[in-house]
């Protein structure tokens, strides 16, 4: 018996080993795709979230990157400090009495901090190197210019610079060239880089900002109405082109044209069609009484919202129809034949056969289109630019404006993360309430 046990034990051992190596092989096989998903899908979201926690502004050198420690930009510092000191000296020559003592105090204060800066061994060598390069007008690399700074020195420097800048501002009336001194001292302030981590402040600000809520509301209105209209019209078109009739291929091809035109191009086209003076569509809508005047289409809030929804429905209904048509073609025609023999009307057939069997296709199409519509950007950017009076500004348009026009990257990232969260919630709702049916059907 004992003799027998050993081989069995080794066998199971071997089995387990094999199983384990199989499993690790399995992991190895899916690893590349997991890494790809991480890089392509998760990393950007994480990156946006990280940036959204900083006060990041491209147009401000002290905030143009995510800084977590205190630093000094020697280039900015040396571009201003010597000139400020010499301007102060010039002013000192002219000044008298109180102004003179005040200016002297400012100067000694600045010089003290400058000495403090130079006392650091490493910093002082960099200081000289940058100074040298500046005098011969050589370009200075980012690594050389920006150096780490002791927190205390940094705070001292910031305090000294801010103080002197304020004190100089107060002396404005007494100075010969107030603009120069004030300007230089204000520029000097930009050389101190303090950590710009602000945590969730952008989210707090955005969530209490009525403009963001208006944008979310506009996005929701746009999404719900356009996706619903697309579903109904798309289903009708799909049913129509599923029937065999003469020229079906041609109809199927032509119906795809709106979807094939680039969005920016079709948005331009609609802009002309909606034009208040010459637009045919605007004219037609005004004639049938949809609007009081042709000009209402792009100048009133409801008109503009209607205009973008109408253009979107025109553009993406074919896509919806195509998805539904694919679903329709999987329904065997024998079902309809059997139902017809049993005496079911066409309407009954549609309700009892088509709709239930088409359910999964409809769900997929709805999910795709809802997510797409929620992120709408190009159509509205070209057609109305978010106007009039922000009535068509969606969350993506707002994020673009904040990020690129105002170069406020931190807040723009926060808005992008909010878009991401909204999209995630929508997907979760679809999967939670409807996904179950989707899985059961198969």
């Amino acid at each position, binding site marked *: 018996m004992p003799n027998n046990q050993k081989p069995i034990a080794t066998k199971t051992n071997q089995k387990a080993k094999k199983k384990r190596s199989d499993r690790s092989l399995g992991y190895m096989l899916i690893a590349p795709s997991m890494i790809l998903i991480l890089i392509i899908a998760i990393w950007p979201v994480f990156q946006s979230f990280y940036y959204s926690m900083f006060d990041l*502004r*491209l*147009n*401000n*050198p002290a905030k*143009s990157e995510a800084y977590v420690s205190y630093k000094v930009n020697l280039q*900015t510092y040396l*571009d201003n400090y010597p000139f400020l000191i010499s301007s102060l000296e010039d002013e000192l020559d002219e000044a008298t009495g109180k102004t003179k003592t005040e200016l002297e105090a400012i100067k000694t204060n600045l010089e003290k901090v400058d000495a403090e800066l130079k006392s650091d061994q490493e910093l002082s060598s960099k200081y000289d190197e940058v100074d040298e390069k500046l005098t011969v*007008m050589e*370009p200075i690399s*980012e690594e050389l210019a920006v150096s780490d700074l002791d927190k205390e020195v940094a705070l001292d420097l910031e305090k000294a610079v801010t103080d002197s800048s304020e004190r100089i501002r107060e002396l404005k009336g007494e100075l010969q*060239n107030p*603009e*120069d*001194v*004030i*300007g*230089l001292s*204000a*520029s000097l302030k*930009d050389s101190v880089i303090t950590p710009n981590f602000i945590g969730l402040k952008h989210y707090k600000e955005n969530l209490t900002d009525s*403009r963001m809520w208006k944008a979310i509301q506009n996005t929701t209105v746009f999404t719900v109405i356009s996706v619903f209209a697309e579903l109904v019209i798309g289903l009708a078109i799909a049913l129509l082109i599923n029937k065999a009739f003469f020229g079906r291929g041609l109809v199927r091809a032509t119906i795809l044209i709106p979807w094939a035109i680039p969005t920016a191009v079709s948005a331009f086209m609609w802009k002309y069609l909606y*034009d*208040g*003076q010459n637009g045919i569509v605007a004219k037609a809508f005004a004639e049938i009484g949809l609007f009081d*005047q*042709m*000009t209402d289409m*792009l*100048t*009133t*809030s409801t008109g503009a919202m209607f205009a973008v929804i109408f253009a979107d429905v025109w553009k993406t209904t074919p896509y919806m129809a195509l998805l539904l048509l694919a679903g329709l073609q999987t329904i065997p025609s024998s079902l309809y034949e059997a139902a017809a023999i049993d005496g079911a009307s066409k309407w009954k057939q549609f309700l009892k056969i088509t709709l239930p069997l088409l359910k999964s296709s409809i769900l997929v199409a709805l999910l795709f289109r809802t997510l797409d519509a929620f992120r709408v950007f190009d159509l509205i950017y070209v057609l109305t*630019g*978010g*106007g*009039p*009076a*922000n009535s068509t500004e969606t969350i993506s348009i707002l994020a673009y*404006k904040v990020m*690129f*026009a*105002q*170069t*406020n990257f931190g807040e723009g990232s926060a808005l992008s993360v909010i878009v991401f969260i909204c999209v995630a919630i929508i997907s979760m709702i679809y999967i939670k309430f409807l996904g179950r049916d989707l899985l059961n059907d198969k």
Partner: protein
Amino acid sequence: MKKLKKISKVISTSLALSLVLAACSDKEEGSSNSNNSGGDKDEKVTIVYARGKDDTQGTTAMVEAFEKKYPNINVDFKEMPADTGKQHDAYVTAFNANSDEIDVVDLDVIWPAEFAQAGFLMPLDRFMEKDGINPDDYNQGAITASKFKGKQWALPKFIDAGMLFYRTDLVDEGSVPKTWDELLAKAKETKGQGGTQFGYLMQAKQYEGLVCNAVEFIASYGGQIIDENGDVKVDSPESIKGIAKLVEVANSDVVPQNVTTFAEPESHTAFINGQAGLIRNWPYQFALANDEKQSKIAGKVGVAPLPAGDAGSAAALGGWMAGINKNTKHPEEAWKFLSFMAGKEGQKIDAIKGGHAPTILSLYEDQEILDANPYFKEEGFVNALEAAVSRPVAPNYPEISDIIQVQVSQAVAKKITPEQAAKNMQKEISAKLVK
């Protein structure tokens, strides 16, 4: 083992490839260096000049003249989007990456503060001192706009100011409207005459042009958005009066009903097609309206200062300047080009071929320029340039502009009253303004 070999092969190949590429780029630089070695005189340097689309011949002619004068410097164009907002975004992206592909860059009058603050530009004071360029020779509004924190960051190339253009066949020179109320009356009177559909055209779309229109109305009633000390002063009775007048004009029946979709192209197209008797626009309107190929009203256009409010007439300052990229590899050559372009010679060529109004005051006495642009002599034109009011100067101007656009646009749409718009602007600009 096999796998490892493969990987090492991939790595070595890519290494070799990158070496080859590096060698190539070295070679390129090397070849231009070898040109340089032929002596200072033969040194051929190419600088890249980025600008928006220029439909006139002005820039091309000016660059040709420059290259003739300095045969060792070659100027390449980098065409940017014509829309000022999009151009801004493109520059911000390039400069933020510390790119050196642009040497000289065109700047809208509202950008220098922002670009200077961001550290994109090279300060020009040293160069100007060396070459003896005196800022006093320039239009002071334009010079002020190119300064920030006591330093000069750009030189003004040409100047724009909002002006009133009118059809001389509908409006007699003697009865050109002097106030906003007269304008409304005149527009009503001429509407429908001579094939017109509208009385007055302006720009009321939610974009930068609306800020210009708003600044003009506010200033003509004595109001200010930001005063000279950098304090926000928009919530004042004068400013409210100005905004209210803007709302009144934009909602009157003399302007097109869809005037809130009008930017410059929409308004000038309607004007040159003879659809209106009066229009507020920039100086280019004059040359365009007299272009017989495009315009139905050539030869029948007059120019005057914008109508006055309680405090007189005011025009928004526009125009373009040029600066040097801080990361440029050829600062000397870039400066040579910039000082030529913004100097007398360059501006003269641009004024004659491009119809742009010079920023150097003495050029308004140059007979060749006056022959090409007879309206430069008109009193209304010169007065409008002198009365030009700049938009708020701030390193985060786009944010300030956005606030004004949104609030004024809502006031024009009658969603809020002018009082509320002023109050909202006061609050929001104060919160966002960076001094």
